[in-house]
Structures are given as structure tokens and as C-alpha cells.
């Protein structure tokens, strides 16, 4: 992109091949007066993994956290645009963000189990939703799906904080999927993990894709190529004075990494800047 260009660059819209679960159109996202992200259209396809990549400060996490209104917890946050989920704009006035988050779950960058037993961690969401069925069975299933059952089945009463970092992150994934959310958002889920734990979480994501829709922010381009079906590349524009992030290009992961349309994408994936 050219700094002297008159009109701001806007990415060509990505036409998703399959069903779109969340159709996110960002016009502007502000933190106070600071314009953090502008003009980005990011459709999230059903039962696929959508990866968000880009340099630091490009707004990829901000966009991801806008998809279940996590950013509402920041008082100065302001979202202009719409996020259509099953035909409803989750930013509509009548929508309760608390309910949105029960359908669109989240896994965070730092493993964040609660200071309670492993069992209670996974059962937390079920109890929260007043789940009437067999809690033990659901907890076991969630832990099995998160590939953690074998390691913890004999110590379910132990504190979730007693596990290793990788186990904690898988516990958090188990906790998030126990309530069977529709969509799972993952904000750099592997950045605090070692390579072995990262691999386990990646394999887990590929399995979860069978039942869930996933969207993931990653700082690691190899990770995007390994797990993402669709990749959205964001960049940050410092030429206008601020540090405003925007979508540069979105498409099938293979196309983004092998035959990008935009020069900026090409430079980023070849490692010319980060």
C-alpha cells in the first residue's frame, strides 16, 4: 500500500464458499478517541477454522474479541458496524452480551483456570446454565475431547492450577466446550505453551472442527498453515498518524500463503516484516 494514496485501502470482500455463522463487518472500532481497527469484513464459516494473522497491533485480537462482545468489558471500547450471528446483530440494543458469550465461547492467550478443582472448572459453565442432565458424564466427555481425560481422570478433585501450562490450556478448552457453544474463539491459544503442548492443542482444534466453528488469532504463521482453513491477514497503518489496523486480504489459507493477491501479504508471509 502506498502512503500517499488518496483513498484508504479496503480489502476485497471474501466470498465464503460454505455457510457463514458469524458475518462480521467492522466499520470502525475505537478505544476512546483512538481508532484501533477500520473497514474490515470478516465472515466466519461454519465448522471451519478461521485464522487471523498479522503484525503486532494490527487489531486481530480486537476483532476476534468483538465477535462475542468481550471488548464490552473495556469501558472506552466503541464498535461501529455489525456482527450478524444467526440473522441477528449481536451489537443490537436489545441483545444481552452475557447471553451472546454463552453461545460464542472463548479461550484466552494465558491459560486461566479458576482456583477450584479440575472437575468444578469443567462443570462451571454447566452449572452456570443450570444444566439438568448428567454433569459427570458431560465433564468426562469434555475432558476426553480436550485430550486431557487420561492425564487427570484420577485427580479430578485436585486444583486446576496444579496442572502444567499445556494441561491448563486444554482444561480451559474443555471448560469452554463442556457447554457445547456454537462457536469457539481462541486468542493466541498456544502462545504460552511449549512446542509439544502446542501440537496437542493444534490436533485438538482439528478434531473440534468436526463439531464446532473456530476462529483463532495466531502470531505464528506456521500454525495458521497447519490448522486454518481460511486465513485473514490484518496489517497496521502507521502512515496516517495513528496505529489503525485493517484487513488486507482474506481467503483460503493455501491461496493466502502460496498466491497472495496483495503485495503486503506477500511481504509479510515471506518474513520481510513482523
Amino acid at each position, binding site marked *: 500500500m502506498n502512503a500517499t494514496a488518496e483513498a484508504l485501502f479496503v480489502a476485497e470482500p471474501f466470498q465464503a464458499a460454505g455457510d457463514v455463522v458469524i458475518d462480521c463487518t467492522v466499520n470502525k472500532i475505537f478505544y476512546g478517541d483512538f481508532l484501533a481497527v477500520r473497514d474490515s469484513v470478516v465472515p466466519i464459516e461454519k465448522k471451519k477454522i478461521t485464522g487471523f494473522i498479522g503484525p503486532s497491533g494490527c487489531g486481530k485480537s480486537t476483532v476476534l474479541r468483538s465477535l*462475542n462482545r*468481550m471488548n464490552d*468489558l473495556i469501558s472506552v471500547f466503541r464498535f461501529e458496524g455489525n456482527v450478524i450471528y444467526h440473522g441477528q446483530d449481536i451489537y443490537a440494543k436489545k441483545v444481552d452480551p*452475557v*447471553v*451472546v*458469550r*454463552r453461545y460464542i*465461547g*472463548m479461550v*484466552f492467550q*494465558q491459560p*486461566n*483456570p*479458576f*482456583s*477450584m*478443582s479440575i472437575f468444578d472448572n469443567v462443570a*462451571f*459453565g454447566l452449572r*452456570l*446454565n443450570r444444566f439438568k442432565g448428567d454433569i459427570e458424564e458431560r465433564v468426562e466427555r469434555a475432558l476426553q475431547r480436550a485430550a486431557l481425560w487420561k492425564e487427570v481422570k484420577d485427580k479430578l478433585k485436585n*486444583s486446576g*492450577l496444579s496442572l502444567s501450562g499445556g494441561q491448563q490450556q486444554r482444561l*480451559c478448552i474443555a*471448560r*469452554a466446550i463442556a*457447554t457445547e457453544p456454537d462457536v469457539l474463539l481462541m486468542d493466541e491459544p498456544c502462545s504460552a505453551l511449549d512446542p509439544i503442548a502446542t501440537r496437542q492443542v493444534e490436533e485438538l482444534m482439528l478434531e473440534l472442527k468436526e463439531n464446532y466453528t473456530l476462529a483463532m488469532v495466531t502470531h505464528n504463521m506456521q500454525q495458521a498453515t497447519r490448522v486454518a482453513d481460511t486465513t485473514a491477514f490484518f496489517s497496521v497503518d502507521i502512515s496516517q498518524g495513528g496505529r489503525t489496523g485493517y484487513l488486507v486480504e482474506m481467503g483460503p489459507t493455501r491461496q493466502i500463503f502460496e498466491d497472495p493477491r496483495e503485495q503486503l501479504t506477500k511481504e509479510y508471509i515471506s*518474513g520481510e*516484516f*513482523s
Partner: protein
Amino acid sequence: MRTMNPTSTIDLTARPEEIRPRPNLDRQTLEPRALKSGFLTGLTWLAAVLAAVPLFSVIYMLLIQGGSRLFGSDVVEVLTGLPPAGFEMGGGIGPAILGTLVMVGIASAISIPLGILASIYLGVLEPKSRLASTSRFLAKVLTGFPSILAGVFVYAVLVIRFGYSAMAGGVALAVLMLPTVVLAAEEAMAQVPQRMKDAAYGMGCTQTQVILKVVLPTALPGILTGVMLAIAGAAGESAPLLFTALFSNYYISELAEPTASLSILIYNFSGMPFENQIELAWTASLALVLIVLMFNILARIVGRSKV
């Protein structure tokens, strides 16, 4: 990004082994630096011992003077009997023990719920608001508040109108407990990591659910530690009770009457010219120290047990 190995340009073979002097790594005990360090270490050690001397000498004194009655054969009479009058022999400190427990109970019932609710506002809801910083500052001032003023305050507000009572004594102790509870609970809640709260919000918790299901349980050991310390402090107070609960020689029968307490009993009996009463004052002191110690130990145990 391409990086260059910065050490690759330094040729480590340039200096031959012989011209490097062998470093002397032996301990130099008589070097001024070492002497100064040893002297200062000794000084801190001495200060630590001196700081513990008053505590141990008080406990020693109490055990010698009060232990014979408290751990003697007439322990039941001492713990349950009424205080003796004049030249009467025997007797006990029963009403004072019960009175102290009742008034500390009243103070806890007032200050703990109020303090925890306040600390939720200060530590979780609006930690940076002007109201929060003002009331946090005032709570800190109140921790250094002369306890007799709490008694005078309650005297002016309650006692003048309703007379001396266990209720007034409990309120005075609550005034003293409140800041300790608020500050300890706020600190404990502020230390609950943001990412745990984020996780709860991410699961679809309302703010109330985040506080009840995540923040309070996680902060519970810290909150209980503060509560126990506040209770221990209140149990030993005497000045505020002088103006509010006064004293009584009989067991408490209702909350609206003057009530005995261990600290006032100690004050009254220690000044009497009778051997028996003076002995009972020592016994009551030991009983009070043991009660306070019990709460302190309980606070330690509860504070340590983290899930």
C-alpha cells in the same frame, strides 16, 4: 527478519592463556567490606531478638501468675463462676468470657457483611472511582484511630439515649473492626487475576456471577485472614467498652444491659487490694491472650489453605 550473530566477529583465540592472571576466589574474612557486613548482620539479629523479648516476657509472666488458676483444679469454677466480691474467696470470670464473646459476635455480625460489601465496591466494581479512593483513604485513617474515640463516639450516639449495653459495646468494636475487614478483603479481591475474571465473563457470567462464583471464592483465604485478625484485635479492646458496655457481675441476660468483658474485668480487678481478685485478673489476662492467640492461629491456618 535477518539477524547476524554478534559474537562471530570476536576472535577468542587472540589472547594466549598465560597472560590471564589466576583469579583469587578465597573468602577474605578480615577485609573491611566483610567486617562491615558481619557487623550489620549481627545488629539485625540482635534487633530481631530484642523485638521478641517483650512478647515472650509478657506470655511468661501471664503463665506464671495466671496459669495456676486457669490450669489448676478449680478450672471449672474459674471459667464459669461469678466474680467474687470483697474478701470472698474463689469465684471466676464466666460472665466476662461470655460477655466478650457476645460483643465480639455482635461486632462481627455488623462489620463483616458491611466490610465485605464495601470491599467488593472498592476492589472489583469501581476501584478507581473517586468514592473508592476517598473511602479507601478514610479506612486507612480509621485503622490508626485511637480506640477510645470509638467508645466516645458510640457513647454520644447510643449510650446517652439507650444506656450502657452489650449492643453499644458491639457497635463500638464494629467501628474498630470495619476498616481492617474492608482493607484486607479489598486487597484479597484485587489480587484475583484479571484473566480469571475474563474467563468467567467469557463463559457468559453476569457481573454478579463473576463476583459470587469466582472473585469471592478465590479471595476467600485472604478475606478470612483479615476477618480473623480484626476479631482478635476487637477481643482485646478495653477502652471502647468502658464507655459503652461498662461492666456487670452477672451473666448477660439481654443485649440492652451493661455487660461484663474480660478486658474491663482485668482493669477493675488489677487495682483491687484483694489477693483473690488480683489473681483472677492475671487469670483473665491469660484467658484473653489465649482467645486472641486462637483467632490468630485460626487466621494463619485458614489463610494458608488454598485450593
